[in-house]
């Protein structure tokens, strides 16, 4: 990881702000993140990540949990989840 890669503090407790909701919608073919005048289709894995962003679990705990759930190397999960959540935060769809 180089200096410009985004990072998220292990003790952060990511959560969706008011006005952002993850919903499952059959007609739209799966999980969607509803936000102010925007709709983002989430694949199953992204939905699993966002579902864990309740404001209770720490970022470190979420990564641990996902690594266990998907039996994947923690480093890899950390990089992927950091990129996803940082991207959402930059769009004001997530609070860290």
């Amino acid at each position: 990881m180089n200096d410009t890669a985004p990072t998220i503090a292990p003790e952060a407790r990511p959560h969706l702000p008011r006005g952002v909701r993850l919903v499952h919608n059959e007609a739209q073919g799966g999980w969607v993140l509803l936000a102010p005048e925007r709709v983002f289709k989430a694949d199953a894995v992204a939905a699993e990540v966002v579902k864990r962003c309740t404001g209770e679990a720490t970022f470190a705990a979420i990564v641990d949990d996902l690594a266990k759930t998907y039996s994947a190397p923690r480093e890899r999960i950390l990089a992927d989840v950091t990129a996803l959540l940082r991207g959402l935060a930059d769009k004001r769809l997530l609070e860290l």
Partner: protein
Amino acid sequence: MAMAGNDAALRTPLGLLAELTHRCPLGCPYCSNPLALDPRQSELDTQTWARVFNEAAGLGVLQVHLSGGEPGARRDLVAITAAAHAAGLYSNLITSAVGITAATLRQLADSGLDHVQISIQDSEAASADRIAGYEGAFARKRALAAEVVSLKIPLTVNAVMHRANIDRLEDMVALALALGASRVEIAHAQYYGWALKNRAALMPTAAQVRRATAAVEELRARHHGEIVIDAVVPDYHARLPKPCVGGWGRRSLNVTPGGKVLPCHAAESIPGLEFWSVREHSLADIWANSPAFNAFRGTAWMQEPCRSCARRDIDFGGCRCQAFALTGDARATDPVCHLAPNHHEVAALASVQEDAPYAYRRM
């Protein structure tokens, strides 16, 4: 893992624009409402809106935009918002802020309102009130924006840009930040309805547009992660047409105050289209079968140069209403496109600036 934007896989409609009323205390000369406004006595009642929201949710619609006119002019706005929430829809209030009190806003928040969009006419009070045609509007907007933020409802500032305010674009984004907005729309006036009537009075110069476009890029970089800045190139100064409403009959529906269902808010400007009403048909029936929705769906209706164009599934030939307004043929290529045979006429119109008094929007 991925988060895709509004991608092509989503075929059922995503959004419903509910024009609850055409009544509005403001007189903005760029209003997108039609010149012939629906009178109060023709407005749908609370129960009908509730039914429409349930039918929309059943159809797969995710978001409802409660708009107008000024939705605050409806005395049953809280009940309407509660009905949208009960239907499971994400609700967005699009307001001038004039006519929504702090007490009403709290009731709306308690009824499940998800998001508020407030229009701001300028960063300077005197100019803002002059554009809105309503003294004191600017102060009331600031006050309601503060209430929205204090209730932790996400706030979007909608800044309609035109010749009188485009040079203060940076100040308007600074104002949006100061108000606590998480999103700002740099919405260049689009020339339909009242804006078409006021086109020469609103049209920015090419130099203003170039400067504004560069300013948006600079502001996006400076405020990355702080505020989302959504902006599109102003139509008449563009080279490629906008994929209007994401494609005709593809993503959204618009219900007028009187109950007519339109593919876009300006669709009634195209003569000969047959619109169906929620008073006589279900929303699912209208979406699938109404002649107006099927008139320009897909690409089969296209003429050249659209028909064989590589971008035909990207911008759908541009805007049908604009094609009609500028060429008299709703099936023509949107003349904003550089490939349109009469593209040069758009450039000519974009160079017409007249400081005539505004024709304010009035009922």
